């Protein structure tokens, strides 16, 4: 087991460095964990029909066994077959009913389960919106996606299949035991022990290896992600002849994970053996005891036939439950991830007493703002102050990593400052509802995300009810109309995942059109041209100039050319304000701004 603990240790190390924890919660999660059961509150109402139908189906098998036992008894006691005709009619009726019930059951289970997933995904989504992009920064977006897609699916089976089956199997098992107790107390007890052992077996296995299974559930996707990473970067690896070496590293890790898997498997089987044995021999023991008691004259012929046929049925609820037990393991593995999101604390909480709605003048002020992404880090923004009056155009410039983009995140309240305050129209933004705050801004950032859908859909995101004229005047102003009409289906062209079918410059012009369409009073241009080909830059710059007219504008840029005509320029250096003033002021001061300008001048 040395290898398995090694890999667990390694993943734990990696994860803790990433600020995530694999094992902390996992080791305490039980099969019926109260947190997980509580998470399902609100979903259980859907499950009554599932439980009812499941019970009806289970009881139909019991009745079928009883009827067959009665027919067999008739034959053994030499009664004519004609007397059994009503029994046969009953059998056929039960079979037909069950046929319909199984059909209905599978539909109902599927509906209930997917409804649970739908509701869970909605809850996760709503929570994500509260947590916002600030929280996302600390996560791997792939893991969040997997939690929403696969995690909800694993839980839909936990809630929709496993939990109802627990009830159905327990009640059906209890019914069979009661009938057998009535036939013969000892046999009833033997079968009871057999069923309890079968039901406890998975719990024993889970107790023995549960925490390691869950670690495996975390480690496996990580290794998987590593494979994907290597395949995606294969050209790089190949050109450095590193493909084989990396392949070997992957092999080592794969082997270690394999050893862990086999270790779990061994333990799973070993933990399952004692109770499994009781369950496996229970049926045989019951039949042998039945034969012995019949021999001793303390059991009737009919009673023995009951035993023969119902012992088989006693295993059915147990088998059904076992088939769903894997869902429960997967569900537990997924629950952790879902709970992590649902219980996460938003980096910027909603206001307790939001200020009354009204019009806020579009002015902004940072007052001694300090912010760190993590406790103990150097501040990304350090005692920073600046102000923009309505209608002003203000620029923030500085080298990459100087803290400019953090300013945008703070403006939009993706995070709250550790110290100081940010004011909009004179009000602390912590007292403004986030939706209302964000409605004040149009933002164009360096990497524009386009959604899979048509160009039109992507534009309408900014203003759902916009008319065709509004749309086109926005795209014209953004110099985007011409290229859009040149696309195969014009405004109805599907832009592809992440907008891959468009060039960086085209995506950016759509982003600008979106900003125009939104028509918010404050415009934030965050490195709006830095991912654009040199050839497209001037087109986009013209478009931006048109938008910025008559609006309060904040330009964040590492290029100085776009900011020369700003009313005021703030130079940031390592999160601190280095100097500020107009273009000509700053040149005269011969400080950082001048140095940046010189560096840039040398580039062409």
């Amino acid at each position: 087991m040395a290898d398995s603990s090694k890999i667990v240790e390694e993943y734990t190390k990696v994860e803790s460095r990433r600020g995530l924890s694999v094992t902390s919660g996992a080791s305490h999660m039980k099969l019926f964990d109260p947190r997980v059961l509580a998470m399902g509150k609100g979903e259980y109402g859907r499950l009554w029909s599932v439980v009812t139908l499941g019970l009806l189906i289970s009881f139909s098998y019991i009745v079928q066994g009883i009827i067959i036992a009665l027919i067999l008894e008739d034959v053994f006691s030499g009664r004519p077959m004609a007397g059994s005709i009503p029994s046969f009619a009953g059998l056929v009726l039960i079979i037909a009913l069950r046929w319909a019930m199984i059909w209905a059951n599978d539909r109902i289970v599927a509906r209930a389960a997917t409804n649970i997933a739908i509701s869970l995904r909605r809850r996760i989504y709503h929570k994500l919106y509260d947590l916002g992009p600030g929280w996302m920064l600390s996560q791997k977006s792939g893991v969040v996606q997997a939690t929403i897609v696969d995690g909800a699916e694993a839980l839909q089976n936990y809630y929709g299949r496993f939990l109802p089956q627990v009830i159905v199997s327990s009640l059906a098992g209890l019914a069979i035991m009661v009938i057998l107790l009535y036939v013969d107390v000892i046999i009833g007890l033997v079968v009871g022990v057999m069923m309890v052992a079968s039901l406890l077996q998975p719990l024993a296995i889970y107790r023995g290896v549960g925490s390691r299974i869950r670690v495996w559930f975390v480690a496996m996707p990580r290794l998987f992600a590593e494979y994907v990473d290597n395949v995606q970067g294969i050209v790089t690896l190949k050109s450095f002849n590193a493909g084989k070496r990396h392949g070997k590293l992957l092999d080592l890790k794969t082997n270690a994970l394999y050893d862990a898997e086999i270790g779990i498997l061994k333990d799973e089987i070993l933990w399952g053996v004692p109770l499994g044995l009781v369950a496996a021999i229970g049926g045989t023991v019951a039949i042998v005891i039945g034969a012995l008691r019949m021999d001793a004259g303390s059991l009737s012929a009919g009673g023995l036939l009951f035993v023969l046929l119902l012992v088989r049925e006693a295993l059915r609820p147990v088998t059904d439950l076992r088939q769903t037990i894997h869902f429960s393991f997967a569900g537990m593995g997924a629950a952790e991830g879902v709970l992590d999101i649902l219980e996460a604390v938003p980096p910027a909480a909603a206001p307790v007493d939001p200020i009354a709605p009204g019009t806020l003048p579009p002015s902004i002020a940072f007052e001694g703002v300090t912010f760190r992404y993590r406790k103990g880090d150097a501040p990304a923004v350090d005692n920073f102050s600046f102000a923009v009056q309505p209608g002003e155009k203000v620029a923030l410039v500085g080298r990459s990593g100087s803290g400019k983009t953090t300013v945008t995140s703070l403006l939009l309240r993706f995070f709250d400052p550790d110290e100081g305050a940010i004011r909009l129209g004179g009000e602390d933004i912590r007292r403004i509802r986030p939706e209302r705050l964000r409605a004040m801004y149009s933002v164009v950032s360096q990497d524009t995300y386009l959604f899979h859908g048509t160009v039109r859909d992507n534009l309408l995101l900014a203003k759902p009810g916009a008319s065709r004229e509004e749309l086109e005047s926005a795209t014209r102003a953004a110099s985007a109309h011409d290229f859009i009409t040149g696309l195969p289906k014009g405004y109805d062209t599907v832009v592809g995942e992440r907008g891959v079918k468009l060039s960086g410059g085209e995506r950016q012009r759509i982003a600008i059109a979106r900003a125009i369409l939104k028509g918010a009073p404050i415009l934030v241009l965050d490195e709006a041209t830095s991912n654009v080909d040199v050839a497209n830059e001037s087109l986009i710059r013209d478009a931006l100039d048109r938008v910025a007219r008559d609006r309060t504008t904040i330009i964040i840029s590492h290029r100085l050319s776009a900011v020369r005509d700003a009313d005021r320029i703030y130079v940031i250096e390592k999160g601190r304000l280095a100097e500020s003033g107009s273009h000509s002021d700053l040149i005269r001061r011969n400080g950082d701004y001048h140095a940046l300008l010189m560096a840039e001048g040398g580039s062409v």
Partner: protein
Amino acid sequence: MSHEHHDDHSLPVGQVFRKVRVIDHLLGTYRLSLQKVRITSVIVQVLGILTALTGAYLVGAVLTGATISDQLMTITLLALFTVMQFVLSNVNSYWSHVTAFRSLVEIRKAVYKKIDELAPAYVIERRSGDLARSALSDVNLLELYIAHTLPEFLQAIVVTPITLLVIGLIHWGLMIALAPFLVAAVTVPDWFARRAEEQGRAHRASAGEMSADVIDGVQGLREIVTFGAMEQSIKRLDASQQRYSDTYVSYEGRSGLERGSGDALLAMGMTVTVALGGWLTTRGYMDVALYPAATVLAAMAFVPIMNLMNIARQLSQTSAAAERVIGIMNAQPTVIDRAVSPPEGSIVPTLDFKEVRFCYAPELPEVLKGVTFGVSPGETVALVGRSGAGKSTCTYLMLRLWDPTVGSVRIGGHDLRDFPQEYLRDMIAYVPQDVYLFNVSVRENIRIGRGDATDAEVEDAARRAFALDFITALPDRWDTVLGERGATLSGGQRQRIAIARAFLKDAPILVMDEAVSSLDTESEANVRKAVKEVSRGRTTLIVAHRPSTIRSADRIIVLEEGRVAETGWFNELAENGGAFSRLMTAQVEITQPVDGAP
């Protein structure tokens, strides 16, 4: 997959059989353990039937007046079968999973090795990420096949006929009465085959759509939140979730119909056996002691078929996965080693393109139409031209990611095809346009350049690539895992990482594809210095976009529509009014008003 059912409407047993053979082919070395697992699983099943049979026989015997002391043999056998079945089923569960996991490990290794061999041509064609993901998750789906499908399949074709024969031994009439129900049960999946396939496809499509919408919603979170488009986005997700739920319900409903039909056929088969057996017994054609045994056996005969039906329901999914994996394994690489060892003698680092013609696929237009140029040892040559002129293609041919259709690329006068690929790539350091950063620390990302480099060497390479300043400013410095917690790098920083890799590799030839997008001022200056450093003393071919890079080259080669349009010094070309000066004017017009220091 789609045409399968139209071409041939065989029973599911036949479908499984063909697909099982395909999987076996993949698992070559594990065939023996697979056979072991399959045979054991049949024995386990037979033991289960024997247990039921002896139990029912014991009951029948006791009911017909036999004493327990007469039946000690039966009881011993019953106990033996019960325990043997328990032991063997646990052993087999272990074996089958070991075999399955082990095979997955091997298949995954083989697929990775194969993708390495096929890259980049195959990867590009299949849209990189999707291929990787599907290849790897498809392999995972095979577990179901190996650990479950194969054993269950064998049980159905071996155990059911044996059971039916044993019933025939009790009375031939029972066998004849039961057979139609068994045959009907086997064909149940076929009744719904077409609907199953359509529903399966619809469900997979809706699942893909939903997952894409989720990804869109997560990756576009910032846009959704800043535009206040939460309701719109939820509505969209709701719509695709609803479709997903609907297709799932109809898929499961149909599957329930199959399951219910199988169950009804089993119960009817048992009922008929009870009725006929009862009649035969009362008429004296059959020993009453065997009557319970016949009843129990009738039900047991169906068990393997029920298991097979469960498997058949997942068949289209898993076999499609298997076919994709096999598709990858059978693909032909674009470049094949024909030399085992490099040409003899020392190799001078000169580069030559001789009348090179190239197209990416026979049906695609030619990208290079007879390109000839050379680079002398230590010389830096800039390759310029409009996008689509074939510049990057030249770098791919240099690295032998593809081979020219006509003509040859040479190093030291030797055709690249005369070098083993590994040897060739040891001679060249490559700095691509889109630098791929792996999801590991910065340090490890640079170490890609040379696996055995020490930390000090890695740091030295970073220093020479002017990457030290931004690396030390990262949250966890050298241990920062790139792409996480906002530790993203700008275009210029990424290029400097790639240059640091090239420094580390220290190869005599440097091939570089300059970034197209604008870099921030500081990066641009640093990248320029780094390129100058790294190209010193190396034979260098740079695909250049920036005037400053072009100007600092020893010589310029202008590509136009797959041909060399002109070649010469910067000033020489800039003034002669040819292709190069046209290109420069176009660029300068755009770049000029952007800047301009006072």
